[in-house]
């Protein structure tokens, strides 16, 4: 069983479109994340979300929005896609607070988004 699964694995779309990437975790974790990995392989946190708080990295454009229908899902919705949004997007999950003994973050396989 895949612990953290994302769909689709590849997504090619035109500028200006709206798209969503789905993420599901079956680990019972209380926190989920979205990361963006650019062409230089730099991995940057976009959001973290649990049932108490949504933390948004200040550099994320408001065209990006996380949507969580339940504890096991955190989908990423992107409006008005731009060329610069092309990247690999990773979903992850963890349990507890990282600083005080929480689990490590488990990552999905990534979604390669190409905006043309």
């Amino acid at each position, binding site marked *: 069983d895949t612990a953290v699964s994302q769909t689709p694995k590849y997504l090619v779309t035109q500028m200006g479109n709206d798209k969503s990437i789905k993420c599901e975790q079956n680990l019972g974790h209380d926190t989920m994340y979205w990361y963006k990995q650019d062409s230089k392989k730099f*991995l940057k946190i976009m959001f973290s979300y649990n049932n108490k708080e949504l933390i948004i990295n200040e550099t994320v454009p408001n065209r990006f929005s996380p949507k969580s229908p339940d504890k096991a899902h955190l989908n990423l919705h992107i409006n008005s896609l731009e060329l610069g949004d092309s990247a690999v997007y990773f979903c992850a999950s963890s349990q507890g607070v*990282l600083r005080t003994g929480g689990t490590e973050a488990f990552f999905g396989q990534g979604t390669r988004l190409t905006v043309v």
Partner: protein
Amino acid sequence: SQELEQSPQSLIVQEGKNLTINCTSSKTLYGLYWYKQKYGEGLIFLMMLQKGGEEKSHEKITAKLDEKKQQSSLHITASQPSHAGIYLCGAPRYGSARQLTFGSGTQLTVLP
């Protein structure tokens, strides 16, 4: 904001050689995570270090945490082609204990 610097950015070694990757934080470290990423795949968790001076090993990979230096090192002994990939260090983001911030990664190539 906290930044993690990794060195070297890329490393090419001959199979069988030892190597070390360093990760230095601009702020106090409250734990350090090491991940490996193969091309086109997600991140695989390697090790988590939470206390100063802590050292962990898994197979031929050893990681240490030096809190005073705000630094961690990852050492691979007798490298193999299967060790090739991108190694990323991550730390709880300063001011947000639920988020991991990552270094820029070290691309490791092991020549057979």
